């Protein structure tokens, strides 16, 4: 299985050259920015909205908003970080529209202390993901990450899936660096705990099936 490599390792100057050309009205340069980041924006949007149609809308709306507001981009951060911030806000708006009965924000469910302390410390079998088919693994990973509160899920996705730095994640989500670190720790520990149900070694040395644990 190949590793997702987020498209953020390009030299900043090259990205900024495209941005400046786009600001001057060069639509081909803007289209190149779309090509660079559309996959990333789609993944982030789908992780937040958990809905494919909403994620497609978010991709369109985020890029269109970026296009319309390009003049306001001050070039203090990477264009990608600025774009992610727009996309996260669009995705959260979708989520609010779809679930109006709930207040959805990045502050949701941010409890303190013991909620993430590990309870399950059984070791995992070696390469546990190989004990499941691709479809089963996808289902396990999707269900597990969808169970996280959105404030934790978003930080985990930006930091660990998309590979943004702690500082970039803080900028994109308008959070402090300690808040990003604290949410990331809890997100990682909660995911680990939940995946342990599927991946832990059994006493006999067999692999846990995950059945009956839900």
């Amino acid at each position, binding site marked *: 299985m190949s590793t997702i490599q987020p498209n953020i390792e390009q030299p900043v100057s090259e990205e900024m050259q495209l941005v400046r050309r786009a600001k001057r009205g060069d639509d081909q340069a803007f289209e190149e920015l779309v090509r660079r980041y559309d996959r990333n924006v789609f*993944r982030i949007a789908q992780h937040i909205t958990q809905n494919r149609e909403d994620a497609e809308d978010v991709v369109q709306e985020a890029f269109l908003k970026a296009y319309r507001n390009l003049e306001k981009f001050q070039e203090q951060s990477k264009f990608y970080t600025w774009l992610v911030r727009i996309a996260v806000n669009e995705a959260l708006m979708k989520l609010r529209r779809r679930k109006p009965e709930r207040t959805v924000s990045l502050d949701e469910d941010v409890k303190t202390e013991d909620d993430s302390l*590990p309870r399950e410390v059984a070791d995992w079998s070696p390469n546990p993901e190989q004990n499941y088919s691709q479809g089963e693994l996808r289902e396990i990973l999707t269900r597990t990450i969808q169970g996280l509160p959105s404030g934790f899920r978003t930080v985990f996705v930006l930091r660990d899936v998309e590979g943004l730095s702690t500082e970039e994640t803080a900028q994109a989500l308008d959070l402090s660096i300690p808040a990003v670190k604290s949410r990331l720790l809890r997100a990682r520990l909660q*995911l*680990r705990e939940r995946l342990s149900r599927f991946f832990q070694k059994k006493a006999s040395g067999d692999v846990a099936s995950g059945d009956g644990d839900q």
Partner: protein
Amino acid sequence: MKCSEFLNELTNYLDGALDARTKSELDDHLAWCHNCYVVCDTTRKTIEIYRGSELYELPEDLRTRLRSAIMSKCTAHKKSDPPR
């Protein structure tokens, strides 16, 4: 070092964001505390599995369709609000 102190530093430890002295204290703790070793190791695996998971990939045909829709909306916007 207590296990709770180790856990508080786990994210910095996994991200390589610690000074040498703190890292060495955490390494010492891991050497004798099996539970923390397992938590640290399986948390690292959790991150690796998600990073390589390819959940929510954008299919090429949909990607082309979305890009074309974005660019035609951009063009329409430019026509309605030309730069001065």
